[in-house]
């Protein structure tokens, strides 16, 4: 019997290298694929060095490796929406969008074309099983400092059935040690932390380069009562909760409370004024089990690396949900994901539309 084929998405980093190595060790017929997403040299990924690193790892593992050019798709489904979101006063989450459209949809289709039964990535996440039905569910990684389920919430049981996360049950330290033990040439390669296509992590500069000047309007910075405290150079430079860069002179520390892109206004508040009752999520997906009931005690994560906040969830119409914090919580940032957890397990999530009032 021939082995099942697995396509491993290889970024050139250590996590996907070890993911590929574990697929090989598990006896799969492994095909490594790197994706060309951003033009060379614009950000921290997709450099020729990354492809060479991935190819060197594949060579070391004795597997085939190919590069697919997904630049057009990536631009249309990740980069342009990223720019549009900033201009609309929201703070986009391009990694989650990329997972949703590029990796677990388009790349999966390519993998099927190549005769693969599974797609594997180096994400830190696990695939658990629903205790009752046994269907697969997204589950937090063993290493809480590396957990990436926040960016993967849209994977339902149908996607998870065919997905492998070979490093999700290891810590980063274990992954690096294994890479070193296997003599993989990327064992010591630094982690990438920033949005891959944005140079130096400077999203504002990137938006300014990509967007037509007409779309970048300066405007006033006001307090909750509407008093003008200062000026700004465009709403895309701000994110809700931001403190730095307001340049309002002295006085109490102020934070961005709200962004009104239509009016071009940044609304700020002092720290006593920041409590938030919850959020409205849109484009919500419940991963195969329907919406949770409002009685369930759940938790929601509203930013990567933030602790999950105890909450209750009430499904509304048209794929929307009201997510109420148990206690007043931190400000929510429109455009970010809201991911709902039941303990370790991800029940689903959506995109933050606004604050619960």
């Amino acid at each position, binding site marked *: 019997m021939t082995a099942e084929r697995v396509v491993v998405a290889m970024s050139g980093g250590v996590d996907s290298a070890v993911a590929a190595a574990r697929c090989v060790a598990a006896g799969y017929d492994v095909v490594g694929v790197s994706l060309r997403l951003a033009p060379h040299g614009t950000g921290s990924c997709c450099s020729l060095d990354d492809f060479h690193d991935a190819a060197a790892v594949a060579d070391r593992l004795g597997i085939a490796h*190919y590069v697919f*050019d997904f630049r057009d798709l990536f631009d249309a489904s990740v980069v342009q929406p990223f720019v549009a979101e900033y201009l609309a006063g929201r703070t986009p989450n391009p990694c989650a969008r990329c997972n949703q459209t590029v990796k677990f949809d388009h790349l999966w289709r390519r993998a099927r074309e190549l005769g693969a039964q599974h797609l594997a990535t180096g994400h830190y996440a696990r695939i658990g099983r629903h205790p009752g039905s046994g269907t697969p569910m997204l589950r937090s990684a063993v290493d809480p400092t590396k957990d990436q389920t926040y960016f993967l919430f849209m994977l339902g049981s149908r996607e998870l059935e065919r997905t492998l996360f070979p490093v999700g049950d290891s810590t980063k330290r274990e992954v690096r040690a294994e890479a070193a033990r296997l003599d993989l040439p990327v064992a010591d390669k630094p982690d990438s932390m920033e949005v891959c296509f944005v140079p130096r992590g400077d999203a504002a500069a990137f938006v300014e380069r990509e967007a037509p000047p007409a779309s970048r309007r300066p405007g006033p910075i006001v307090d909750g009562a509407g008093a003008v405290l200062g000026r700004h150079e465009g709403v895309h430079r701000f994110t809700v909760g931001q403190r730095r860069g307001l340049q309002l002179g002295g006085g109490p520390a102020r934070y961005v409370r709200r962004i009104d892109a239509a009016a071009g206004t940044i609304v700020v508040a002092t720290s006593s004024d920041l409590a938030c009752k919850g959020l409205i999520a849109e484009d919500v997906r419940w991963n195969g089990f329907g919406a949770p009931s409002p009685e369930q005690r759940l938790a929601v994560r509203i930013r990567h690396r933030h602790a999950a906040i105890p909450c209750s969830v009430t499904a509304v119409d048209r794929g929307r949900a009201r997510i109420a914090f148990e206690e007043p919580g931190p400000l929510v940032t429109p455009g970010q994901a809201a991911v709902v957890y039941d303990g370790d397990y991800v029940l689903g999530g959506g995109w933050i539309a606004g604050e619960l009032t």
Partner: protein
Amino acid sequence: MRVYLDYNAGAPLRAEVHAAVGRAMSLCGNPSSGHREGARVRRCIEEARAQVAALIGARPPDVVFTSGATEGNNLALDGLLSPGDLLVTTAVEHASVLAPAAAFEAMGGRVVRLPVSSDGSLDWRHAAVACEERPRLVSIALANGEIGAVYDVAKMAALARAGGAHVHTDAAQAAGRLVIDVAALGVDLLSLSGHKIGAPSGCGALWMRPGVPVRAAIRGGPQERDRRAGTENFLGIVGFGAAAELAAQELASTAARMRRLRDLLWMLLRDALPDVERNGPTGLALLPNTLNVTMPGIAGESLLVLLDLGGVAASLGSACAAGSPEPSHVLLAMGASRDRARAGLRLSLGPETTEDEIRRAAVVITEAVRQIRREAAA
């Protein structure tokens, strides 16, 4: 056993070449040195020069060894053009012509890139008009490596010379596949590549008609009669000479065989996949070894990977360092969409390709296309 159908990217080393290079490896000495060791190496180089010259009907002293056709093409353009000059070339040249042309343009030169029609053939009306503008240089490939189109360089040379221009042709893809005679072509400069005809990569040549004032690009030694400095790539040159001699001897028989097998491959594909489309010209205006096809609706990248996994080496357009090709500029120039220009599958045969290999390749390609279509339909 794998089937290698990417000769236009690089041919496997021929056994005769391997043997010749192996013998040469026991020699030592700088060919510019006065001692016997150096003289012995020098003789090998000159023998190779004669072998390469014979392949193109040239005199040996007019052959300058280079690192390959890319260097030859760069040398021809950079060595002849000065700011203010006009260069006439085509939209479908190899990057080693198009990139120096673009650099020349950026430095204040004028460039006309002749368009091609949907089958890759040249628009002669355009060519005639451009040649009346008194270009300094006309550069046109003898054959295109992606679609296999063969261009009437003799006709172009006649037009160009009437306007006082020098004429360069990139013959890297034509060598070993077409009869090449510099006198009959009427050109002044002709580039060759070793590894396309079964020599080691890293060696090629630029033939220069005596008196054509090409400025050396690499300076610092009297090698190659002051036209290309640097200690000669002795082993590469010996291999190139052996490969050139072999190509000249075999040409008549191998060209006919490659043509028959290429046509067989096309027939097998067309029978199995009725909607397969062919890119480029047919008949005599086509290299005997090249077939470029498109499977409608199929991503070229997937097809190529399935062929590779299935044991068939082919390519999409020309080879690319990143491993993921840009849309083919040749297919774009022929009017293809970006998607279609990414999907042209190039199958190129060589003198050692067998009928059995062609039949196996046809099966692998057919299976790959069906596999992709099954998934698309699911």
